[in-house]
């Protein structure tokens, strides 16, 4: 079709740290599997921090919006 080549090896990328070629599937398997305890802990802490901020936010006591969200 006359396109300039993007990658000689379709769907592969070069890992700059090791200079080796990684396919999409290899990339997935490197990061795939079940989340580690550290990741689960980090995700929980992340939400915990957000909840802490929300609880500390002062709203007028009588401010209760309709349950359905509408843009306005």
């Amino acid at each position, binding site marked *: 079709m006359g396109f300039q080549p993007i990658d000689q090896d379709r769907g592969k990328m070069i890992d700059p740290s090791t200079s080796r070629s990684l396919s999409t599937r290899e990339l997935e398997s490197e990061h795939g599997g079940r989340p580690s305890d550290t990741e689960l802990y980090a995700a929980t802490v992340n939400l915990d921090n957000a909840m802490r901020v929300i609880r500390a936010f002062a709203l007028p006591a009588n401010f209760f919006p309709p349950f359905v969200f*509408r843009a306005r």
Partner: protein
Amino acid sequence: MLPDDVVFSPVSALSVLIRSRQVSPVELTEAYLERLEELGPRLNSVATVSHESALAEARSAEAEIEKGPYRGVLHGIPYGAKDLLATSGVRTTWGAPPCQNQVFNYDATVVKRLRNAGAILLGKLAMLELAGVGHYRYASASLTGPGLNPWNSDRYTGGSSSGSAAATAAALVGFSIASETWGSILIPAGLCGVTGLRPTYGRVSRHGALVASWTMDKIGPVCRSVEDCAIVLKAIAGQDDADNSTFRDDFTYGPWRGQLEPLRLGVIQENFRSHGEPEVEQAFAGAIELFESLGAKCDSVSLPQFPYDEVAEIIVAAESTCSFEELISTGKVHELADTSQQAGILAGQEIKAIDYLKAMRMRAWLQETFAPIWKRCDVLLSPTSLSVAPSVREEVNGMFLTPIVAAGNLLGLPAISLPCGFDKSGLPVALSIAGPAFKENLVLQIARAYQDATDWHRRRPPAFCSSPPFARTRTEVNAR
């Protein structure tokens, strides 16, 4: 094979070619199918190509245009849909390994409306798994692999509408449909150098779309020009009984006012020094100067002090965990490609009802707090992202998100991202324009004035051109 000047044309110009019989819908469909099938996999931008049905639709459109009636600008125009929109009989994977064989027996409302407008569905475009709502860590958080940027395939497209942005930028489709919960239209459109419109919450039906976060999800177009976004929005907008969030009033584009005076543009001050790139800052400053030269009054604006990210975080996490309840209960959540995404969805179960409800109260409070901004300015300008597309191997979790992205999504405001320059390495830089709810026409008019005065949106990724890039054609010039 059709030349670059045709396949890279915006919809507005393609429709002129079709009406004047210079190009037929079948020729156009064949050209995009070839590009989608040959080049799409190199960018990991394609989920499923509907080769036969696309050709059948193209033949039907061709015959109908020949005999009449002509349905309008989208008649005979091929497009791609983000793979979170249900398409009858064609798999809809949501970008997620555990959903890779999912097939619905109905079409999403947006797909139906585009069919009624005469547009031709080429196939489904790649996306981050489950729209990335669980906080993915790597670009590879997708069934189809990392979204590779057409301007440099070592760089990321941004997400979650990775395929929609890349396929539109590389001219693998005439236009595409994407969705945004928290930046998923604006960011990939910006990083890939195309124009993406996030409509007001309630403007476009989500019926048949993945429910990532039902009070945050919006569906919108990714195109090669502002005018195209208006054309597509006109076709997909409107009330739908199947989605009770939809708004009754029609969307109207135009009439074109031609100048920006006396509009007031509020410029959101971003902290480039701490986490931005100087070239992005320069391009954005150049855009502000241009808006001023077009007659607009640009003044700095500060967003109200508010925990935007935290409120968005709790709402999205609570709603998405609820939406993905079955994935969690069946254990299929562990089939997701990105473990951070799994962890985020699982952690969402820990959110208490009181925290979600408080976040929703705060959101409504933000609507009141934000309202005075619209008395001081007509729209808000900001860089779409403070940096250009990062390496596809970098950790990307949340790196593109500025407060206006969370604010605009929490409030359900319309916004558009459009190219405003390139860095020295040739990567696109983009600006965003956000407006009050249901003021898409205003946002589009301002964005169009910018595109009429610039040619950033006409640039083409060199690796996807068969002729010298940046050549302007008679067709394109006439289309302006």
